[in-house]
């Protein structure tokens, strides 16, 4: 903690949360609420032949038993379409499966009862006759020519086939001094937010208004979705995200079972609630990351990168995630390749397949960790092949986007980067030379330590160019409505949402500084579509980068309005006045009138103001990057690990990150964002995996069996910053929410494989289970050692 840094303002809500006064969706007292439990498909793919709910209907406490047919009266079917990717089209969906279930965990029947326990009791009384259908689980089966479709009627399972090519990669590979290649398997992961998905929906049939309390990142998006599917005008739908117990992209989609809850509220005209329990979270929360990648890299004798060729197979699950689709992971995996490096020749191709598994969707850093891992691992292999130190090799190849904008070989827009500065800072921070010396000494004692790097680009503050052209109704702007209340306090209603990142505090700091008022006179309101202006919410690391810019602009306009009014009241030139601590001061610095005085005058005695047009004390500003698709941030991470080659275990000893997210508003909050992201990346590399049998059954769907990173195994993580404010905004902040996750798994990959160098082995499949490590060592032992 930089305790001396005045920017390290603690979060106001933290004091409430540590006292147990969080107000998460399930904490809201909704009175006589119906609790919903779902009967879910036990099969990955099966036809529903017959369903009998009679016994469930008469079970104690049951209010209603709801099937697909019941909901068709109030909820329209939907299709997830991306205009520019017409093949990424999954079959029409409805909230509850009607004739066919396409993944184990798909909701089929909803029971509404007085208690959750009673709803579950009734679930056990629902009789369904199933006929199992062929299930597609792994990627090869999905891609096979004669593969049965994931859902009846689909022409095939291919949901994405996208390629990019730059330069002449074939020629570059042909002429290269050295070529390396590697295979990568990325296991399915899932978000595992500690607060499971929760939704509480109330519908008042008298006025036909729907209010949804929703543990979600993007309430405005959900208002769009509920409005469209339930046939209600936008103005009749209010979505409120109260405190949210973790989201990480998992709470960014419109889940069919949550759509069912809103539809049931409309159908029954009473409040209903669904809290996913942990077991159903594993089979209904979006999964992510599943991919297989083959990558090749060509370099010349001077240690310059020449060409890369990357082929990605991506797994989607049963349906495209609504409304954003499931293509992002695979697309990012090919487009973010080599983003931090100069590279002239590149070919990338991604094919994605539907499978009879839980739908895949967004998870923190979408695809970027895959691209970073492939790039960084190939770089290490190449450095080793031509005898260069991996750190030095990276430094020679960083892209030149410090002073002039650039595009990566795969088309990523870069500007004002600081990779070399971050790099140099990192090496000093970690005492790189000392670590290498120690590594060499310890190898003599058969202690195998590895040092791994991951330089990264993080796409932050993504604007309308991503979803706009795809015709996906997701707002990419962030907006801020500032109001001076009559008591002189300032109310900021922002479209940005905060699930603990600390965005509210960042905005508060920006406001206090720009406006010249005390922080404790500002209220920040988030997450309520009725109150906050239209905007994205929380996705693609946008809170401070975009929401902060909107806030800054609103603050400047509001301040100008305040001073204009004050100038007229004081008969002074507004330019000579200052707002300090909520008080207007004259050129001599003497206090003249408070913000409360001005607001009171405007609100109740405006006849005293000698202006024809009195400027508003409520202003709205929005911001979206329109000339650039996103604001790239950059940084570098390093991991230090020890591998036990006899047991196959890996210990993470140290971890470092140097990040440049532009102007840092609150280093303390930024640091913990990065650390949290790093730990999720370490989790991916070492622990997390949705294990599916060949039959499509999830075999480890509990928190005891799906291994998340815990404190005992995690290292201390040291963070340093390079601050290069972006010129794309006045504020200068870039995003940081995904930085840790973009690079951490890659740093573990390169570190583990560095440790294994003397043993001639490489790992290829994350998570690196002890068995995978031992298998790879055994394989290396069977083969001649590289000389």
């Amino acid at each position: 903690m930089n305790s001396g840094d005045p920017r390290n303002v603690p979060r106001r809500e933290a004091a409430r949360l540590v006292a147990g006064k969080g107000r998460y969706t399930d904490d809201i007292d909704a009175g006589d609420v119906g609790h919903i439990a779902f009967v879910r498909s036990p099969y990955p793919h099966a036809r529903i032949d017959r369903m009998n709910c009679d016994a469930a209907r008469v079970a104690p406490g049951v209010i209603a038993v709801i099937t697909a047919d019941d909901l068709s009266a109030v909820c329209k079917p939907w299709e997830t379409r991306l205009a520019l990717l017409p093949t990424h089209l999954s079959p029409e969906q409805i909230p509850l499966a009607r004739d066919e279930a396409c993944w184990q965990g798909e909701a089929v029947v909803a029971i509404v009862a007085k208690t959750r326990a009673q709803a579950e009791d009734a679930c056990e009384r629902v009789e369904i006759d199933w006929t199992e259908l062929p299930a597609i689980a792994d990627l090869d089966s999905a891609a096979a020519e004669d593969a049965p479709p994931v859902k009846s009627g689909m022409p095939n399972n291919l949901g994405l086939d996208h390629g990019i090519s730059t330069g002449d990669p074939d020629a570059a590979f042909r002429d290269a001094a050295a070529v390396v290649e590697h295979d990568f398997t990325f296991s399915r992961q899932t978000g595992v937010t500690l607060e499971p998905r929760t939704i509480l929906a109330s519908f008042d049939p008298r006025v036909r208004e729907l209010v949804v309390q929703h543990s979600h990142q993007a309430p405005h998006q959900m208002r769009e979705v509920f409005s469209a599917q339930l046939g209600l005008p936008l103005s009749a739908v209010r979505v409120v995200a109260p405190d949210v117990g973790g989201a990480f992209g998992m709470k960014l989609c419109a889940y069919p079972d949550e759509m069912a809850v809103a539809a049931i509220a409309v159908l029954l005209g009473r409040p209903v609630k669904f809290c996913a329990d942990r077991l159903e979270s594993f089979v209904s929360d979006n999964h992510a990351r599943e991919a297989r990648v083959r990558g090749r890299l060509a370099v010349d004798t001077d240690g310059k990168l020449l060409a890369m060729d990357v082929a990605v197979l991506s797994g989607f699950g049963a349906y495209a995630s609504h409304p954003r689709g499931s293509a992002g992971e695979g697309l990012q995996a090919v487009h973010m390749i080599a983003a931090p490096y100069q590279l002239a020749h590149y070919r990338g191709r991604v094919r994605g397949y539907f499978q009879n598994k839980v739908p895949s969707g967004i998870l923190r850093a979408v695809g970027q960790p895959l691209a970073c891992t492939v790039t960084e691992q190939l770089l290490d292999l190449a450095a080793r092949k031509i005898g260069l130190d991996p750190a030095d090799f990276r430094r020679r190849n960083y892209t030149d986007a410090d002073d002039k904008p650039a595009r990566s070989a795969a088309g990523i827009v870069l500007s004002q980067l600081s990779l070399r500065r971050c790099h140099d800072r990192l090496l000093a921070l970690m005492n790189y030379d000392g670590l290498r010396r120690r590594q060499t000494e310890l190898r003599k004692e058969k202690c195998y330590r590895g040092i791994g790097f991951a330089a990264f680009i993080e796409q932050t503050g993504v604007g309308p160019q991503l979803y706009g052209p795809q015709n996906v109704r997701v707002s990419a702007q962030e907006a801020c409505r500032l109001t001076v209340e009559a008591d002189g306090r300032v109310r900021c209603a922002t479209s940005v949402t905060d699930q603990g990142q600390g965005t509210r505090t960042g905005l508060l700091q920006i406001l206090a500084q720009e406006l010249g008022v005390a922080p404790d006179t500002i209220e920040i309101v988030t997450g309520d579509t009725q109150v906050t202006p239209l905007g994205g919410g929380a996705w693609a690391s946008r809170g401070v980068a975009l929401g902060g810019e909107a806030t800054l602009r609103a603050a400047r306009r509001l301040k100008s309005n305040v001073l204009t009014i004050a100038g007229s009241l004081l008969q002074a030139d507004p330019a000579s006045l200052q707002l300090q601590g909520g008080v207007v001061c004259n050129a001599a610095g003497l206090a003249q009138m408070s913000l409360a005085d001005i607001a009171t005058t405007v609100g109740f005695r405006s006849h005293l103001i000698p202006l024809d047009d009195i400027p508003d004390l409520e202003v709205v500003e929005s911001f979206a990057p329109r000339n650039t698709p996103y604001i790239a941030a950059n940084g570098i991470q390093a991991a230090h690990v020890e591998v036990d080659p006899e047991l196959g275990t890996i210990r993470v000893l140290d971890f470092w990150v140097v990040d440049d997210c532009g102007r840092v508003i609150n280093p303390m909050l930024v640091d913990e964002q990065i650390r949290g992201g790093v730990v999720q990346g370490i989790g991916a590399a070492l622990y997390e995996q949705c294990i599916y049998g060949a039959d499509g059954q999830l075999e480890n769907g509990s928190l005891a069996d799906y291994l998340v990173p815990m404190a005992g195994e995690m290292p201390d993580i040291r963070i340093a910053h390079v601050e290069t404010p972006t010129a794309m905004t006045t504020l200068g902040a870039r995003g940081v929410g995904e930085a840790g996750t973009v690079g951490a798994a890659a740093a573990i990959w390169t570190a583990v494989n560095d440790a294994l160098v003397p043993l001639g082995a490489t790992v290829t499949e994350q998570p690196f289970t002890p068995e995978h490590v031992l298998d790879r060592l055994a394989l290396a032992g069977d083969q001649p050692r590289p000389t």
Partner: protein
Amino acid sequence: MKAPIFTYRRPDDLDGALALLADHAGEAQVLAGGQSLMPTLNMRLSSPGMLVDINRIASLRGIADRGEAIRVGALVRHAEVAESSLMAARIPLIALAMPHVAHMAVRNRGTTCGSLALADPSAEMPAVAVALDARIVLNKRGATRTVSARAFFQGLYQTARDDDEMITEILFPVARKNQIFGFAELSRRHGDFATVGVAVRARHIVGALDDLSVVFFGSEPAPLLSPGARDIILAADCTDTTLADAARAMTADMEPMDNQQGRGETKRKQAAVLLQRTLRDMLGRARIRSSDV
């Protein structure tokens, strides 16, 4: 998920509990610490008609010195065992194993006897009980019997306990002066159940260890006492090769399961490594001890 409906009874004495178990055999389940039973209820993986909560039965409490053995009652929590200076002094293997058992809040509630009754193959205490040849006291209405831990565990979640019986206490034999112990396990994360583990008891004779009790757990359906270990004598100055050969010989007795933690054959290799390291550590400690004498 929420637990299914059941009847809850909380007898004040052992006879009351045994009567309920006798009258509702097959239906009734004992609730002690609940740290394994409650999750199965909350997942609706089990649906006993009746829970017999034994937490009010005073006679089941307490750790007691019985001379040749230490008695651990059915209500003794893992935390109590871990904090007992008597246990630490007299039964060193438990002190070695206890840091691997679950997490603080779970150790505060979970009982040692409950762990044995459940017979989770990855749990530490059953392996310790087998290594020490502890005696497990089983009561039912009108009858008491004592079963050796080595006969108690019969397979995956299978024990010698009948439905109408409950474990009332375990008797852990105290360490003899010339005994030495080792314990190691491989788990993915701290406090997780073991992928594979070893618990070892040996006799320390001049310049060697013999009378080895080597128990493999985690990898097996039930704690496995290596039959080959008994005949192995390890010289204090034995080479790594000798030790590796001995470890390999003992792991040949294993029948490790394939599961999410890995293939059985992988676990056999890992067990050999754990065992070799454990034995090396024990030999080191034995040497220190002999130099003390």
